[in-house]
């Protein structure tokens, strides 16, 4: 059970949060201009990394804000947490 440092509320138990998949996948601004393959890339293709992964999390049973997390999936160490719209920390 992680201890997650919500950027708006502080440290809270994992059960207050919901994971929301890979981060930094921007919805295309002009979907209709995209080919099937390009749209499928946005829609379906997700990384599943053993190691450093960028993820979206939502404080669903708290402030309900979305934020980003950098997590090492091999040992679940949370490397960084930052707000939506902010740049990911340098590797």
């Amino acid at each position, binding site marked *: 059970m992680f201890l997650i440092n919500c950027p708006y509320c502080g440290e809270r138990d994992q059960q207050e949060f919901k994971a929301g998949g890979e981060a930094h996948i*921007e919805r295309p601004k002009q*979907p*209709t201009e995209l080919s099937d393959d390009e749209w499928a890339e946005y829609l379906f293709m997700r990384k599943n990394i053993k190691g450093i992964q960028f993820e979206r999390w939502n404080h669903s049973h708290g402030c309900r804000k979305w934020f980003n997390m950098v997590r090492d999936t091999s040992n679940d160490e949370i490397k960084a947490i930052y707000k939506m719209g902010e740049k990911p920390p340098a590797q």
Partner: protein
Amino acid sequence: MNKNLRVKSSEYIDETNRISFKFNGKTYHGFKGDTLASALLANDVHLVGRSFKYHRPRGIMTSGSEEPNAIVQIDPGTNRTEPNVRATEVEIYEGLEASSQNCWPSVEFDIGGINNFLSPFFPAGFYYKTFMWPASFWEKYEFFIRHSAGLGKSPTSSDPDIYDHRNIHCDVLVVGAGISGILAAKNAAKNNFKTLLVDEKNELGGSTVYENNEFNKINNKIPSEWLKKEIEELKNIKNLEIKTRTSVAAYHQYNYLLARENLTDHLEAKDKTNKIRQRLLKIRAKKVILATGALERPLIFNNNDRPGIMLSSAIKKYSEFYGVACGSKNVFFTNNDSAYESALSLYNKGINVEAIVDIRDQSESKIVKKVKEAGIKIYWSHSIVDTTGYKRLNSISIMKLSNDGTSVTGSKISILCDCLGVAGGWTPAVHLYTQSGSKLKFDEEKQIFLPNQNTSEQISVGSCGGDFRIDEILKNLNQKLKDTLNINETDLDSIKVEIDQENSKRNIWLLPSDKPLGKTKPFVDYQNDATAKDIKLALREGFRSIEHVKRYTTTGMGTDQGKLGNMHALGIIADTAGVKMGELGTTTFRPPYTPLTFGTIVGRNVGKFFDIFRRTPMNDWHVENKAEFENVGQWKRAWYYPINGETMHQAVQRESKAARESAGILDASTLGKIDIQGSDASEFLNRVYTNAWSKLAIGKCRYGLMLNEDGMVYDDGVTTRLGENHYLMTTTTGGAANVLGKLEDYLQTEWPELDVYLTSVTDHYATASLCGPNSKKIIKKIIPDLDLSDESFPHMSFKEAKIGNIQCRIMRISFTGELSYEINVQASYGKDLWKKCIEAGKEFNITPYGTETMHLLRAEKGFIIVGQDTDGTMTPIDLQMDWIVSKKKYDFIGKRSLYRSDTMKEDRKQLVGLLTEDPNVILEEGAQIVSELNKSPVEMLGHVTSSYFSPNLNKSIALAVVRGGKDMMGKQLFVPMENKNINVTVANPVFYDEKNERLNA
């Protein structure tokens, strides 16, 4: 039998408090302070169970939670009965009853014991290999397997006890209250860390409190005396909470641990009532200090499992702590010095020690000399090659061990004995450590796995960290405490330790016999009956990974997770495969460390607290009027209102007719409601719904369909424009929370530039939905001054009104196809509103209807229910709802996906109506649909999603999804059922009032 082996008075045993208990139906006596195991041993009872596969008689092997054999059923036949309990952990109480498990009909005569004589036919993987075929025989095998193999019996009535959960946040959690744990907790608390110390036993002190080796001294005192004073001092320390009878079951990431605190299991029945039995502690600790100690290893030799063969350290604990001799003719078998302490402990109490068999060629420590002086015979470089005694050990045979340890030579010596203590060295208890995700490293010199890479703020101190000598323990503990607590001095700085202990150990994982391995039974996992032979067979058959060997041989798969034999299994694999232990890795230890009861896991979340119920403000009325309820998500919704003993079918038929012929009323309060405000609210709706919203006039309502980005229908509902920048969205009952979450997600992450605010108002409003040709007259009676004319208040529009002083919102919208009004009031007025409507509707025979009738009425109209007629794979086009998909809008959620090659395929499953040839036959929801009978393989075209008998059409109707169904109007298809085939015809899904004339009736 019933010989008394109580040999010494012990301060931990209250001999003035005599307790009687029953084991396997026979009455025995023990004393307050005894465990079931110590009390049985005092009565000379060793045989307590049968092994799982061969049903070999098994005895008490240990004195702690690692016990593999003495697994009992507590208080059998009562509603408090608990299976799989370790007799070594049960504190006896007056009236306790316990029985052996895994034996049928009794532990003394067990029919499964015949497996033992058949054992050449029970190799590793036997169950996998044999009971797999012929498959039809499984039922016959199952009867015997289930009957003769057993893991105890579950209680058959509900648990009378109360269980509890508690959250604890602390600076330092110390697990294990042996000498290391006590000193760690004391120093942490003294330095102002909020500290919690837990131990699974009822007494603090671990093994040191009965450590009476006169050659070891702490501050000139023998360790037990010194430690008892330390324990005494703990009482005066602030910041320290101590919990005994508390075992840590799981150690998760981020220092989150689960522990079970046992509060009443040691009390007699009358004192258990109305108390919390067990409490699950959910502990979040800043730092964790593991002081879980070490488990003594057995030795693996031929027939090493007979009752009477025990761990040497257990014999010492029974003697020193419980004052019980485990046998009257004792022998020890060892590869290190610790058996000599146990032997001396017995000798000092006048108990006969026949011999010590040591696989080493010598040891020069003082304690060995002392044993020699006592005249106890020591056989150096000898090994046990066999044992005898079926239900109790009666002799061992020993032979000289070759220099390389792989064979035995010379003549066989037989020694009579009734108890054998084996000492194979110590294995650090690293189970919790590895559960936390931290990594181990194999220490070649000590032949143990040691903590290596920590993943959270934690340290392992004492013997679980690999220190076995008291001087090393205290020195390393001191340094580790200073480092982890960031302190400069501790109590330990001034401690003086004297010690005389030989570290030498000769490690042989599998000891040889004079017989070939195939003819011997060297058990590695006692509970699951895995022998060294099985492990070698698995390797011969090609298994290499330790995890595979474990599953194939079931080594370490019992309730004890193989705490005793896992290391030997690894050692034997490494030796056989010719690899190093370190390269082999170790198996994963999984929580719980010892089994937990379901009661502890669920705590108070039982009965009506199992899940949250949501009830509408009108709920009381529904209950008073004998509604049947159905669960919709967490909501309890009125399902139908049977009168005069009607069946569900009869009630629904009556309700449906009434709603179309005169007036019906539905409690629609559960529909999700989201208040949407902001200058970009219209633009926002444009992006989330498939249809256009910018031109919706204030005071008008519109139905919307919401897709996922993959183009599949996600939710639907009517949204009303309350003002220029103000909308009220309704969602499905079950989808409300997810829809809100999804909308928030888009607003926060994709469209943060939009000025839109969302508020869930589902619980704030109560909704009564009136429908039927007379609904307008009823509204007129309640709100006489409201203009209800079609010109002023047309279909799909909204008005604010007042019922008396109560403000309400009225939407003229319809989910039934009838003239219909939805009245929304503040939730607290919901019941009043409902009663007013019923009262005013009396003259029109207003009929309350539930969700079932609602479903029927909308099916007559071909309106979909998201989640019933859709399943996350249906696009609006598949639903024949092309009309609601805007062609003009540049974008909305899911739009691009509607033009993917897959979603444009002609032969996708599409929503159609189905009519049965015989109008009285009602299809089963979920039934498969085919175009040809007797075709193999059967081509499944689709399935029935909704099906009812329509009283208004006087025939059965159904909605279905059918591959290519759109182009099949009028085609005959078949619904094959178990006993018959039903002929159906594809039809328009709108069965009733296709022209929507009744909306304005």
